[in-house]
């Protein structure tokens, strides 16, 4: 039988706001970056994170502890972001050109390598924003949140084999988008 072991969850279910704040403090960085990578811009990410927190607070009484609080939280987070993305079907991306034109220049070879990395990161964020939301979700859970395949399978409600194959397919598509954006991307890796 399912059991909730975290006392903070039990207290938050009874309406203890301080216990809830403590839980959120523990997850807020990963939660925000999940939203940021899903929504592709900071303003939307903050709005979504706040909306997710309201949903979590209101749904806490129905949480039975069949999975960990973390898994439950990210399931709500990913589903809320997916719902919003499906509504909008668009995402604002950051621009690699904007970064290159920001006036910052490398002073030495190490700095040049850092710029390459920064450019790669921006390119990857941008490509991620172009990816279909279902593929984006599996990459975010795996690479932004560093979740195990078992946990991702539980959140997405599919077998582990499906998670593995979907993740591989998502990365192939991501690489394809990156190469369309920047044909020399793999040379810089």
């Amino acid at each position, binding site marked *: 039988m399912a059991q909730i072991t975290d006392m903070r969850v039990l207290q938050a279910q*009874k309406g203890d706001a301080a216990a809830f704040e*403590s839980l959120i403090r523990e997850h*807020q*960085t990963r*939660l925000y970056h999940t939203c940021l990578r899903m929504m592709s811009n900071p303003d939307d990410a903050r709005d979504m994170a706040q909306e997710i927190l309201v949903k979590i607070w209101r749904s*806490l009484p129905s949480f*039975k502890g069949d999975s960990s609080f973390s898994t439950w939280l990210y399931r709500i987070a990913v589903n809320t972001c997916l719902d919003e993305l499906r509504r909008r079907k668009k995402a604002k991306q950051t621009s690699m050109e904007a970064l290159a034109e920001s006036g910052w220049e490398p002073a030495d070879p190490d700095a040049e390598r850092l710029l390459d990395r920064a450019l790669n*990161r921006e390119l990857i964020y941008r490509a991620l924003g172009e990816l279909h939301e279902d593929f984006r979700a599996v990459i975010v859970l795996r*690479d932004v949140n560093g979740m195990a395949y078992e946990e991702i399978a539980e959140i997405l409600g599919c077998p582990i084999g499906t998670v593995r194959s979907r993740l591989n397919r998502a990365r192939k598509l991501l690489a394809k988008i990156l190469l369309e954006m920047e044909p020399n991307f793999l040379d810089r*890796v």
Partner: protein
Amino acid sequence: MTHEEIQSFLDEYAEGRLPEDLRSEIREHLERCESCRNWFAFISEEKRALSDFSGQDAPDLSDWVSQQEWTRETAVRRSRWNPKRLASVAAALVLIAGLGTIGILSLHPYSASKAAPAAARSIQTADAEEYASMDTFSDEEPPQAAESFAETDNALEMKGDMSVKTVPGSDQAAAEEPAAPEPFAEADGALESNGDVSAKAVSGSENAASDEGTVFSAEYRSAQDGTGSAGQDPANGTESAQDSEKDEGQMMKATETGDPTALRTTGQDPAPRRSGLLFTLVVLAVGLIAVLVWRIRKAKEYGGR
């Protein structure tokens, strides 16, 4: 293993999560396969970039939470079946039931009869004007025209409309018309057997009346209800009212027994009743499906897991 299979394990290989035999197989493959090595490099770069939160500080969400009013909601208010939610569900059910009832009432035969008095009144006004104009011409028109008017009056009388009695200076032909009940019964019988009210009214009133076919048909309906004439002629009005009561009794009986034959004799069709029930069922079904879909979606999203 194929390249595809090897590549699908590279993510976990990088984290050292795989069993030793699989690890060694992948290691050997990477040593001799350049494309898989490139893919491994890409995955490593992608993971590093996405897990790098530097320069993107998260807002203090817990601090934001502490400032929100909704955290002061009690556990009872947040629970699945709190009074507010129960009230919402009850209101939705009442709304669905109300829509269904409106559907039945709007399509039920009795609701249609309620609209008849207003129609009858407007028809009476039109009749009074028509008779006034007839009086104007009655002294000048040749005998043939007078006969035509007499036939028109006859037809009007047959419909039980007593406004003809109230028009001053009614002509002789109108005064000598036979009593209403007998032709009324004939017209009634013809209409009931055919069901085409306006067509029968025209055929019974010749040319002059043919222009007023629709008026007669509406008049006939008002006469059936007993509302159009009851206030103007006590004798015929009472008779009409009695007929009407008889018809209503028949309809009630037919409705209660569900006998379509009994309904047919009154000129009423059971189809509206069936349509009303169908409408109710459709509204209820749509409401229930909407509630079920909503609950399933909620359960899938949050369902306590």
